[in-house]
């Protein structure tokens, strides 16, 4: 009888939490939902721009050159008469590619190196951390700038530049996580019954360490988009027919007095996306990090 009650109390606790989580529509959660919708919308823009943009981004409405926002052109037109809203919608694709792919590469390499350094320890740890220290002596944007300049202007090179400059951050987080998990009792117990290292890594450590990496990657996505659009802004991206947000903003710089909307809206798009990603990242961190609860 006593056992039954115990098992009931043990099982009821998480269920109750789950329900509470679902219906918790407080003000801070409202922000998270709005942020999530903004992210989804921008991702939809990147995937299906032809369904969302009102015009072709390359079509020049010659009778509407530099016209301010109006019912016909919600965000105005640029100096070629191109619709700014359509340009922003189509520009989301390259901007997101830079952000997402560089996080995957940087997080994958950085997280992998950090996991190895933290788990193996010793000389491997020392060498990796030295390398990370060196990468960290060069501020991220300068490192990205040097790499992008060295490789020449192309979308993939901007991605690589941003990815490499983000590696040290992931390495540090993953290493710290590894070092704390490998000392936990379930890992020690597993090792004491003779489980091989690779099995411990895959079955015990990785499932327990992906959450800080996920938080880091979410916030890193914002940073990567900021750095990537900064590189495009400085002219290191690709010169294409449909520019990404950073390049679009840079093109509008020459028209601040005659067409404020050309630079303003691509910047607003960057800010909205990064802001939403950061709000979601904060929420994830609160959920996974017991310290802030």
């Amino acid at each position, binding site marked *: 009888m006593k056992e039954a009650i115990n098992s009931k109390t043990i099982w009821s606790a998480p269920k109750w939490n789950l329900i509470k989580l679902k219906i918790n529509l407080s003000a801070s959660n409202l922000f998270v939902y709005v942020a999530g919708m903004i992210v989804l919308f921008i991702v939809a823009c990147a995937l299906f721009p032809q369904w969302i943009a009102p015009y072709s981004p390359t079509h020049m409405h010659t009778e509407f050159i530099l016209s301010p926002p109006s019912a016909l052109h919600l965000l105005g037109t640029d100096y070629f008469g191109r619709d700014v809203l359509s340009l922003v919608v189509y520009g989301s694709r390259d901007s997101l590619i830079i952000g997402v792919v560089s996080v995957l590469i940087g997080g994958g390499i950085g997280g992998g190196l950090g996991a190895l350094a933290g788990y193996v320890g010793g000389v491997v740890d020392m060498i990796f951390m030295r390398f990370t220290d060196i*990468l960290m002596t060069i501020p991220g*944007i300068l490192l990205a*700038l040097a790499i992008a300049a060295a490789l020449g202007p192309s979308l993939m090179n901007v991605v690589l530049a941003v990815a490499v400059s983000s590696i040290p951050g992931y390495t540090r987080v993953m290493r710290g996580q590894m070092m704390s998990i490998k000392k936990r009792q379930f890992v020690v117990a597993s090792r004491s019954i003779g489980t091989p290292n690779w099995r411990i890594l895959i079955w015990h450590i990785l499932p327990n360490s992906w959450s800080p990496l996920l938080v880091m990657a979410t916030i890193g996505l914002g940073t990567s988009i900021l750095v990537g659009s900064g590189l495009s802004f400085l002219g290191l991206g690709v010169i294409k027919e449909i520019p990404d947000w950073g390049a679009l903003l840079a093109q509008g710089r020459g028209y601040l007095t005659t067409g404020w909307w050309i630079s303003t809206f691509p910047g607003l798009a960057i800010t909205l996306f990064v802001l939403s990603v950061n709000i979601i990242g904060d929420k994830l961190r609160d959920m996974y990090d017991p310290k802030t609860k």
Partner: protein
Amino acid sequence: MTLISKALVRIANSFVSVLGSLILVFCIIYLLPGDPVLSMIDPSVATPEMIENLRRELGLDQPFYVQFVEYFTAILHGDFGQSLINSDPVLPKILMHFSATLILTLTSTIFSIVIGVTLGVLSAIYRNKWIDILARLVGLFGISMPTFWSGILLILIFSVNLNWLPAMGSDDWKTLILPSLALGFVGAGLIIRMVRTSMLEVVNEQFIVTLRAKGLSERVVMYRHALRNALIPAITIIGMNIGEMMAGTVVIETVFSRQGIGRIIADAIMAKDLPVIQGVIFFSAIVYVIINLLVDLSYSVIDPRVRRSH
């Protein structure tokens, strides 16, 4: 370990980091596609012999490691090489423009600390009140807005529309205000978030409960005791941020057409001027390492716990 020997270890580590960054930067630049010699002289006019001579003159025909050793010895003698475009020596050029960048970095830092600490503390004290929500929004916007956009918005508002402040140039103090605001806003966002989190953590600690139980007024507990302890992690963020801001001048100096080393490297990258790119990045790495070293050392002076550990 005593404080001094710990400091010496840190200094030695920093030296190794700087050396490593030099090798790294050299390797990256060495990968640069395109022949710098061909960008210096017009291949349609020059004979192959002239190109070959120039290449030999610049030492670009040597293998990688020879070029590196030569570059490294030159740097030890304070020679960062010459610009490929106009043959200006690199180091004097950097030093000449460094003061402008340094001033911009300092004003941005001061702005970010004032705004960041004030809002961060208020945010933690008035948790979940409107001022907290406002401060958290400012913090979020600070870290989410690209500086080139906030800079352009400031130009649109204060230069184009209100005509209060100049949009570009680096002549007098008025030209410093808008760039400092744009650059400092990022730092302010980071500091607000850091100070708020660490204040909230400190407030939950037992010594605060003790102080309250002792009957100290809330004001004394918060501003005298909680704030002091909460500011210690904030100092790290502030220190790291000085380096980030200095790097951020690359973008800001371009937006506001200011003189400075950020502008030098942005121009050099467009012109593929290798010695200048290399020089500026290496110079920034040295400054960055020195700042972080100072922050680390000040950390152990300020926080008795750090001093006593090890």
